[in-house]
């Protein structure tokens, strides 16, 4: 597909990646900072979220308001957030404003003011976000699910824990930001319309002075129990379930992606057909591949009224289990074409590409071209997928439900 990937590794180890796109006037960029939820010390769950808010409350020669106005003045569509390994901050914008935006983000990362006065509202907003999640059981169930599915600290909530947030002080949080905002382990990505030579020069100028630092190794602890129910007198039972699978580096990775496509790729896939189309049990049902660098799983969500919850769960588990019994050539082809076409559709968006190349580099140490991914998908067959499914049976499901009624998970 003739992609133009740019790459540069700075002396201190910071990596710059770019993908030039024709026919766009926009550009998207992102900084991946190695300061995600799992990286924070024990007892500081939510610190990464506070830091993400706090660093925008004044940086360099600008106070909170001046910085906000400067960012808005460039028409930035801001993006980012906290995941297990990283804080990602970035934006999409008109290409002409890229350099001015990078300048501001340089200050935000390297010279955040982090004043005591701005700490209080930053922390309060994160606490409010956690409390607000109680009114969004659909989102909450998936956070609670990952918390139990992945061993600690990998499963740690990416929104925060109220008890731990309340104990955070400006001093400690400031220290956490300083320790983990380590340019030598940052990844910067840009996609769309840009001049790589200019970008390289600017980033070198801003981040090149920082020295090398080694990565922290995470101490992996135990994972949570098999089933947890959270009582909530809402209208539906929100069911989240997750089963372990191969990581992105595994040779069976593409077989698993195709298998997930057969379970939940389009409306013709098995979960939608069996749960919604044939039985009318749910409006929302779907499964997704979810990966961290250290572990991966297939996560499934379904929301249904209490009387149908048990049947919904049973039908879903049955669909997972029966996939290894046999698949047809036709459904394999549907899953493959679905994966390939979503790849091409996403390739038109500068934000999607900036995110994709960053994730690739973090997970694999390199950027896969779209052609490479397409070829790997093409190589999968009925036999390869079935062999993979039989070798890696879906088992050890972790289940979380939120709603008025518990289910039996067998």
């Amino acid at each position, binding site marked *: 597909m003739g992609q133009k990937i740019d790459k540069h590794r700075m002396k201190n180890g910071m990596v710059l990646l770019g993908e030039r796109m024709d026919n766009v006037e926009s550009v998207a960029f992102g900084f991946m900072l190695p300061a995600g939820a799992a990286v924070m010390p024990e007892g500081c769950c939510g610190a990464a979220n506070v830091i993400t808010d706090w660093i925008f409350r004044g940086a360099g020669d600008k106070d909170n308001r001046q910085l906000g106005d400067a960012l808005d003045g460039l028409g930035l569509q801001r993006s980012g957030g906290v995941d297990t390994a990283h804080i990602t901050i970035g934006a999409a914008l008109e290409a002409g404003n890229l350099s001015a935006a990078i300048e501001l983000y340089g200050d935000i990362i390297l010279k955040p003011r982090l004043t005591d006065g701005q700490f209080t509202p930053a922390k309060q907003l994160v606490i409010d976000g956690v409390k607000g999640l109680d009114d969004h059981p659909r989102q909450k169930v998936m956070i609670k699910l990952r918390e139990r599915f992945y061993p600690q600290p990998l499963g740690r909530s990416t929104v925060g824990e109220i008890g731990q947030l309340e104990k955070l002080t400006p001093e400690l949080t400031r220290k956490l930001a300083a320790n983990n905002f380590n340019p030598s382990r940052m990844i910067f990505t840009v996609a769309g319309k840009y001049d790589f030579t200019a970008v390289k020069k600017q980033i070198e100028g801003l981040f090149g002075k920082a020295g090398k630092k080694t990565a922290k190794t995470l101490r992996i602890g135990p994972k949570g129990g098999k089933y947890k129910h959270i009582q909530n007198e809402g209208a539906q039972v929100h069911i989240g379930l997750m089963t372990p699978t191969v990581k992105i580096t595994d040779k069976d990775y593409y077989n698993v992606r195709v298998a997930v496509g057969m379970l939940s790729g389009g409306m013709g896939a098995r979960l939608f057909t069996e749960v919604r189309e044939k039985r009318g049990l749910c409006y929302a049902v779907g499964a997704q591949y979810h990966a961290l660098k250290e572990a991966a799983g297939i996560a499934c969500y379904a929301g249904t009224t209490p009387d149908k919850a048990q049947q919904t769960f049973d039908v879903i588990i049955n669909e997972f289990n029966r996939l290894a019994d046999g698949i047809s050539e036709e459904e394999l082809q549907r899953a493959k074409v679905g994966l390939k076409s979503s790849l*091409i559709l996403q390739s038109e968006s500068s934000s999607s590409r900036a995110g994709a190349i960053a994730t690739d580099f973090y997970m694999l140490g390199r950027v896969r071209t779209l052609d490479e991914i397409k070829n790997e998908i093409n190589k999968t067959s009925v036999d390869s997928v079935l062999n993979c499914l039989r070798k890696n049976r879906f088992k050890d499901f972790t289940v979380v439900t939120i709603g008025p009624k518990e289910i039996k998970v067998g």
Partner: protein
Amino acid sequence: MEFKVNKLKNGLTVIGEVNKSAKSSAVGFFVRTGARDENPQINGVSHFLEHMVFKGTVKLSPFEVNEAFDRTGAQYNAFTSEENTIFWAALLPEYLVEITKLWIEMMRPALRTEDFNIEKQVIKEEIAMYKDQPSYDVLDRCRTLYFGGHPCGNSVLGSVQSIEALTAEQMREYFTSRYAPNNMIAAFAGNFDWDEIRNVIETGCAAWESRDIDRKLSDTRGTRAKERLEKANLAREHICLISPSVSAQDTQRFAASLLSMIIGDSVGSRFFWELVDKAIVETASMEYSPMDGAGANFTYIRCSSENANKAMEIVGRIFAEATKAGVTENELKMAKNKVLSALVIKNELPMGRLVDLGFNWTYLRQYRTIEQDVSSIKAVAVADINALIKEYPLSEFAQFSLAPAKNG
């Protein structure tokens, strides 16, 4: 970019904007029907019918429809609002003809009673799902409160009662009266061959019969009613405010959109600096929603119950100050930058372009280039916005609050 339009004898309009350098194409059928075209006996039928379109035709079973889409890897779906029902697909150009033919077939659905009964369960699940999303639920309730008896206040989903009472026969009647070619647009964006698509539409849709179709258009400034409902399982206070604004046809719509951004964008707005930045509320946003012959500003706020009164005092002050002193040059400049970059980014994708293309034709019977929209936004002056605020004071709102039940 090249714009094309063709109108069939039966009234179906086909529009397309060809961009040969795009990697994908997008197709949509825009049907000018929604909750405002329903009466209480059939409330929810537009949205339910949108689901039933996917349940197949005389020739195709529901499973065959899903598989036909999935074979092409298309991303496809549909949505229903108070006044539009839109069916869309974003896909690789080589599959566009095949998927357009599929949509054409589906626009004449079988509406089988057996499928209707299964799908009724799914619709009831969807209603339950939104009950568990208070940010949506409060907006739906506030819309009904604001519009009073105006048809734009009709619930898109309907209620469990109205859906249970609805019959397949009532849906078939509604379908015949609303899915007529003269009430629909077929729209295309991205990479495609216009002549080929025009022929596919001519061949597939020429036999559809036109009908006399009517929609009652009346402007409204809404009610100023206030309601608060406590629910046992809620943790936060969810507040929705709706105030009147200009319609989708009004030339002041660009000013209205900039005003809502100045007052209530998720960052950098007056709401942001006065409410969110100070952590008085978790979120506060205002969005201008242009409609057919009417328009409104929707505000959503989420906070603790303890802060709800304080938040509303500040909102009241923000509204009063805007009415008294207007907006500033600097605020307008920042809002323009944000609106313009969002416009450019959205329109880089054929699917994003399709939405603007289809709605401009639906509301204005007009093709507008991105450049025209850019100049209209740039041309808005502070005085235009200040005149708009005087004409439509933000403080004339209806309010609905969903709140946690107080203990004891």
